[in-house]
């Protein structure tokens, strides 16, 4: 056991341990369901993608590298990636509508207590805090709600290319700050 139990489970899953796979589902499914519902907004589609997510986790666990990040971050990335693939494949007109989701809150304490080295987490939070509020807002909208450049452009009422340039500058500034480079 280490201080990253999800990483431990992924290591065992990479060795084809099915008991570990069931434990991983028990410990991560509420979080990943939350990710998929927020991004896809449709419960039936979220449940569909959920099956793909765990299928992919089983097949790709061997590619997880615990020296490069936390287990929970990796499984959430798998879920977000599949959700974004679905969102980008939707016809543009239905990008932001969709049936109302009944979000049943899970009241259990959050299992994914922050375990990142304190220093890293603080630097990243500080750098995020230094972004212009509107840029940070757009980054969060993309990351959490899966908004496309087209969605963001219409929300902020600017042309699509302007939005893209603007968000890319936000990413550049964030990266420069985190790595300690001088901001351009």
């Amino acid at each position, binding site marked *: 056991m280490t201080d990253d139990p999800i990483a431990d489970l992924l290591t*065992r899953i990479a*060795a*084809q*341990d*099915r*008991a*570990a796979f*069931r*434990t991983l*589902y028990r410990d991560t*499914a*509420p*979080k990943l*369901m*939350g*990710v998929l519902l*927020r991004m896809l907004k449709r419960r039936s589609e979220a*449940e569909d993608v*959920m*099956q793909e997510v*765990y*299928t992919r986790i*089983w*097949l790709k666990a061997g590619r997880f*590298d615990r020296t*490069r*990040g936390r287990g*929970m*971050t*990796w499984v*959430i990335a798998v879920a*977000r990636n599949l*959700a*974004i*693939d679905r969102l*980008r*494949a939707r016809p543009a007109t239905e990008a932001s509508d969709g049936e109302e989701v009944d*979000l049943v*809150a*899970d009241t259990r304490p*959050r299992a*994914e207590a922050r375990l990142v080295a304190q220093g*890293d*987490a603080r630097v*990243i939070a500080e750098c995020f805090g230094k972004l212009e509020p509107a840029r940070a807002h757009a*980054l*969060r909208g*993309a*990351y*959490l709600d899966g*908004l*496309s*450049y087209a969605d*963001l452009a219409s929300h902020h009422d600017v042309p699509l290319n302007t939005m*893209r340039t603007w*968000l*890319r500058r936000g*990413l*550049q500034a*964030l990266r420069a700050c985190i790595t300690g480079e001088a901001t351009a």
Partner: protein
Amino acid sequence: MSEEEDRIKAGEYVLGTLPLDEREDFARRMARDARLERAVGDWQNALEHLNDEFAPAKAPSLMPQIEARLFPRPAGRLKRFGGWLGGIAVAGAVSMALLLVVPQNPPPAEVVATLGGAESALQFEARHDGQRLQLVQVAGTAAPEGQTYEFWAIAPGAAPVSLGLIGTAGLDVEYPRPPAGWVLAVSLEPAGGSPTGAPTGPVVAAAELPAVDGG
């Protein structure tokens, strides 16, 4: 494409804002380029604090469907099962006899069984800590290439239940302490585990749980 451009594109990929064609193009390049994969990992770490804002939701129990997708059960394999159980009975009896040899120093309380006798090429030790059952290989070689050891619990008269595959570090699974009379067994299975959910390969080690005698 410049390294800087690639880094920013990796950020857009992680954010998810790339249009579909660019997204697919980036994913194809990433599959062949470890540098892009690392850049994506860096962005995932840089943005991971946002994950706290995803509120957990009630998840339906989808494990049966997921396992059915990953581990399909071909029909008609259950017939092999009866013969296998016969084998287990013999293996169990043999191991039982070997378990009766009382060691000079009593083993730590948590050892519940030794699978495969002292003279077996393959030997596994099962321990229980009150909540979890652990199995470690203590003698013998790893499973051959393309195969794996799978661990089973068998209640008297019941079908074997898989407790998982045994990796190089052993197996550690939340499971009640099996009572006396149960059989613990290890079989050799194709990589990925038994395709049927029941043992299909040879039993390489087994033991029946002895009655606790306080000695």
